[in-house]
């Protein structure tokens, strides 16, 4: 019993799930659910369908090359059973998994970093340019930091700071 990969979306197909299609040239296509199967029948290219792993890998959204992928390889020659080896393998699988997912999330984080930097720059610029909307130039001249001005409360008025923004 093996876990296979869906041909369309590359998700795992557990035994008892999905559909297998064998073409006349003996190539086998496995699908995890009818969504992928129907997409295949419509002759859609998974590399162009946004939610598939193939698209994500092709367009650099997900990690493509890594040494953790080389641990998992279809071996056609079975090894003789060795208890120690089996134990080690089972433990190793967990560790390798963790490392792989860490690296994948790091990859994504790095990818999004440039956007973050850009957004921060934009925010700073917006703050600098728009500070006049919330702080009068006189107040700015007195206190040149880009913070909201401190509101002087008149005690006789008996109105607190928090209520003010709400009344508008």
């Amino acid at each position, binding site marked *: *019993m*093996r*876990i296979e990969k869906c041909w369309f979306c590359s998700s*795992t197909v*557990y035994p008892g799930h999905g559909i297998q299609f064998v073409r006349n040239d003996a190539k086998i296509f496995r699908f995890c659910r009818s969504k992928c199967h129907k997409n295949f029948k419509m002759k859609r290219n998974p590399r162009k369908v946004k939610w598939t792993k193939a698209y994500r890998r092709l367009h650099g959204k997900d990690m493509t090359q890594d*040494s953790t992928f080389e*641990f*998992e*390889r*279809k*071996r056609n020659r*079975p*090894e*003789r*059973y*060795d*208890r120690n*080896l*089996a134990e*080690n*393998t*089972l433990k*190793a*699988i*967990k*560790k*390798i*998994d963790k*490392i792989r997912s*860490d*690296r994948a999330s*790091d990859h994504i984080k790095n990818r999004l*970093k440039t956007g973050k*930097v850009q957004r*921060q*720059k934009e*925010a*700073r610029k*917006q*703050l600098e340019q*728009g*500070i006049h*909307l*919330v*702080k*009068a130039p*006189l*107040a*700015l001249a*007195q*206190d040149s930091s*880009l*913070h*909201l*001005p401190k*509101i*002087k409360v008149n005690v006789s008025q008996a109105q607190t700071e928090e209520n*003010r*923004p709400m*009344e508008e």
Partner: protein
Amino acid sequence: MVQYNFKKITVVPNGKDFVDIILSRTQRQTPTVVHKGYAISRLRQFYMRKVKYTQQNFHEKLSTIIEEFPRLDEIHPFYGDLLHVLYNKDHYKLALGQINTARNLISKIAKDYVKLLKYGDSLYRCKSLKVAALGRMCTVIKRIGPSLAYLEQIRQHMARLPSIDPNTRTILICGYPNVGKSSFMNKITRADVDVQPYAFTTKSLFVGHTDYKYLRYQVIDTPGILDRPFEDRNIIEMCSITALAHLRAAVLFFLDISGSCGYSIAQQAALFHSIKSLFMNKPLIIVCNKTDLQPLDGISEEDRKLVIEMKAEAMKTVIGQGGEPENEEGVLLTMSTLTEDGVIAVKNAACERLLNQRVELKKKSKKMNDCRNRFHVALPKPRDQKERPPCIPQAVLEAKAKQAEEEKKRKTEKDLEEENGGAGVYSASLKKNYILASDEWKEDVLPEILDGHNVYDFIDPDILLRLEELEREEGLRQAEEEADDFEMDGEELSPEEQEALAEIRKKKNLLIQQHRMKKSTAESRPVVPRKFDTDRKFTTKRMGRQLSTLGLDPSLAINRARSKSRGRKRERSVERGEADGGDTMDIDGNQASKKLRLRSMSRSRSRSRPPITEVLPGEGLKDSAQKSYSYIETKAPVLWETFHWKDGQALRHVQEIKL
């Protein structure tokens, strides 16, 4: 025709029948209905089709005839000669030639008439042309009628010819009429030939088959031959002569010892000598028949001498083939078909001689050499008398013996199953015979799937090493990552700055929304100008709040606004206290409410107003010059108009008429 099967030739119809067949077929197989109203091309086509169809049929049928009848040059000369003997070669060829010409003539007729039909301009004309064409074709066939009849006769006769294979083993029986050839034939084969006391009972060749040493032999019975010069022979004799001439067979020359056939031995000997040239290269056996009437020893001296002479001739043929000269028995034999004495011996002798001759011939031919090479078995020459049997090592013998023993003693899985409760109860442990490093591991169950991975894909003897390497790499990478992250943190905004940014964005959104509302309602709904502030939105309190959120001190602005709107008396009430919360006033000093201005102007001035050209603070003008200029520009034209409203175009500078 290769196997000389003349039975397969199709029947040749005679002239009239031929015509009938073809014409009726034309009528049935082509369309029959035509009207004179049809288009002319259609009419032409209709009749052309008929003419062509008829021609094609004639052509077909005549071609089959020509092709099915054998060509005398292309078949075995035996058959060629036989057919020539029976039905003159020349007549035969002529008949076939006539058929051929008829065929060509018909083709020509059809072609001509089709050409004429192309220009037929009416139904009647086309029809007549077609009638003429068909008529001419039929005349041609009528003319070759006799040839057709002749060919039909030939065909019938040919079908009845015996199917003789000229290449296989054949035995030919010849001799004078009535010597006992046909009886011999009946004896050795299953053929049922007519045997009668009169001469020329057998009028043509007959074929029978017999077996010898698991091989089939053809036996051909010929009509009797008389001793005549060659040219005088009739057709029947010519048949046998042809057979003798062309077939490669063993010849049995029959001799009637007793003379009861009506011819003496001398006559028969004479015949023998006249046709001995035909016995070239054929194993010849002289058979003395009818020994029951007259034994061979009892004949007269001259007869015996003649017989010896014939024997000598026969011996020559034996020597000519390379056989041993001592073997005399095979050459001259005696028998009696009545008593069946010696019949088998004769047959055997004949078959044997023929077989030997054929084998000899085959041996000399090239094909045999190829076969012979394959039969060669190479054996090493023995150099001494020592025996050398095949050598089997002792270990193998012992192992074989042991295996045999084990087979008997071994306990099978089936026995085990039966011991432990039978088929449904016991399930054999398939892992019993595994060869593992430790026997405790035999019953271990290894999961095949773990966390969405196939475990078997990960099994690798050096997985530990690789895992260590990987973890080291990972450690390094994580350190790098942290360093990078550390660098990154400089750029962020502080929480107060973020607050400010949020406020800015909110304000911007609000402005945008208001603008959009204004834009959408501007054309459809007129907006009340600000000075008619019925909702009482624009208060000093509001202004004060807004200014203070911007970080300014609003008190000065509030005071000024109030002073502008209230006038002098109200000022005093402001100074007393602001507990009442303030009235709704315009904050713009310039545009005071009309009512209030009127009221204030109608009352006496308690405070002097400043001169017109003096600039008051808050007006937005630079100096008095600018103010006076602004008056000139804006107010002066209005004043001029108010005082000169009576002036028209025509009434300029007209003095008043004094009465």
